[in-house]
């Protein structure tokens, strides 16, 4: 049952060294504030899982939190590469990063199967691709009705899923709205689910078929306004595309990266942290 906790307390209680952690968000609602808290708490040896590792995972990888990445597209959307991730993969800095690489379709099916309580996802996929040659988790089954050979992948079952959402009601039920990505699936597939929200409200006041996660599917909720910045929260603030563009130069250089992280993530007092990205 969802408990309202400070972000510091939620991360401290639920994210352990060595855990498989999925901070999900498909461009929208990326839980940056939670990821920064993991960095500040110095978590190590994490297996990071995510369809679209972007700047947040670049930061976590660059700060040495991760030993492995399970993913399907790792880049700065619309800008280019993740230079910290490349540095880890190409040169082992600050430490080597093992990759387990899928396609989006496979990752989406794998979360979906995880939410559905199945050990595997079955899909028509990877036809003619070299990915099955480098990922031992891509296998095949034969359809007993048609004989068609279909790809099989283990379902995604992270130890901890972390998402950001628009709002939670007093009881801890959470509304996700707009580009909902795989957030519902990640929460339902995980052993532990943590949510940061823009605000806590009396009533979610939404459509009967909106994407709502009941309080009893969630372990902890932290109210973190602008917790998705520089990603965005539909109905609250827009994506800071300028920041995404500026990240390229910051991340290309090890020292510039370290300085930025120190200044914006590690050192600020919590009062200041919450204003990163505030427009005024």
């Amino acid at each position, binding site marked *: 049952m969802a408990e309202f906790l400070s972000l510091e307390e939620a991360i401290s209680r639920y994210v352990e060294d060595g855990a498989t952690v999925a901070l999900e968000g*498909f*461009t929208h609602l990326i839980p940056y504030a939670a990821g920064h808290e993991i960095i500040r708490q110095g978590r190590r040896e994490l297996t990071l899982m995510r369809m*679209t590792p972007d700047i947040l995972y670049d930061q976590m990888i660059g700060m040495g939190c991760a030993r492995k990445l399970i993913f*399907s*597209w*790792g*880049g700065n*959307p*619309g800008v*280019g*590469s993740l230079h910290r*991730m*490349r540095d880890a*993969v*190409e040169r082992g800095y600050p430490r080597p990063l093992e990759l387990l*690489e899928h*396609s*989006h*379709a496979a990752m*989406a*099916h794998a*979360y*979906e199967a995880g939410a559905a309580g199945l050990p595997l996802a079955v*899909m*028509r*996929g*990877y*036809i*003619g*691709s*070299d*990915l099955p040659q*480098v990922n031992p988790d891509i296998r095949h089954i034969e359809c007993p009705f*048609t*004989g*068609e*050979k279909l790809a099989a992948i283990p379902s995604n079952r992270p130890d901890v899923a972390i998402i950001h959402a628009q709002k939670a009601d007093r009881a801890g039920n959470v509304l996700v709205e*707009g*580009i*909902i*990505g*795989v957030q519902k*699936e990640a929460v339902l597939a995980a052993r532990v689910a943590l949510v940061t929200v823009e605000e806590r409200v009396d009533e979610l006041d939404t459509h009967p078929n909106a*994407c709502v996660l009941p309080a009893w599917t969630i372990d902890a909720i932290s109210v973190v306004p602008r917790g998705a910045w*520089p990603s965005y929260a*539909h109905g609250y603030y*827009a*994506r*800071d*595309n*300028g*920041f*995404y*563009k*500026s990240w390229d130069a910051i991340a290309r250089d090890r020292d510039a990266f370290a300085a930025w992280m120190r200044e914006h993530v590690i050192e600020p007092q919590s009062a*200041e942290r919450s*204003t990163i*990205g*505030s*427009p005024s």
Partner: protein
Amino acid sequence: MSDTVPVRDGADAALDYSFEEMMTVTAARALGNGTTCFVGIGLPSQAANLARLTHAPEVVLIYESGTVQTRPEVLPLSIGDGELCETALTTVSVPEMFRYWLQGGRIDVGFLGAAQVDRYANLNSTLIGDYRNPKVRLPGGGGAPEIGTHSREVFIMLKHSKRTFVRDVDFITTLGFGRDGQARAQLPPQTASHVGRGPTKVITDLCVLAPEAGSNELVVVSIHPGVSRDRIRDATGWEIRFSDRVEVTPAPDARSLEALRALKARTEAHHDSAQADFTASAKE
């Protein structure tokens, strides 16, 4: 990839449009009205929206972020900008997008970019070098492996250079026609009946290529105005062949250029204002 490429040399400057504009307008024209198009970010997104704003107002644009039938006013920087959701008919979850909409067989055209394409139209967006010891680690396949096989046909768009047009890609992220051009022809029938025709057009800033019947090797079928065959040969990493009937690509029309430039201007203004926001906040 950068959105704005200056005209590259004096010879091209004589034309009233850039090579990138030529490429974008040509790609846009390839999309029919009413077509369902699964849109990759960057160049394909620019071309697909230009089609929608000109001759194909009812083209159905679908982005892998879950946004169905979207009509953005400005080009998204990312595959999941808010603009895509706000102007969509509906937004579904990402698993639903890949399961019901892509794998479900509802896409006419998959519109892809890539870091590299080879002579059999295989795409590489994974890495340069060896998988376990890469020279350059690229972002990865994302949606492309299944977009490439589940769409009825695939359009590919990328800038022409020896770096991007290679004889054999180091890694097949997304199937074109395989290492020997025959991979689609050799699929078992249960699979083949669910797999599209594959790449039918590769649109570059210099020309349009298409797979040759039978061999499926990419050959040039149309050359953009003002481009020489030698220039294409020099920019291609294998001995490129030209179709028996090479056409000259029709030049962009004024309406398309106007719409494209207005779209890019709106987009730049929009992104600049976002940048200004960041600058303000970063100063705090």
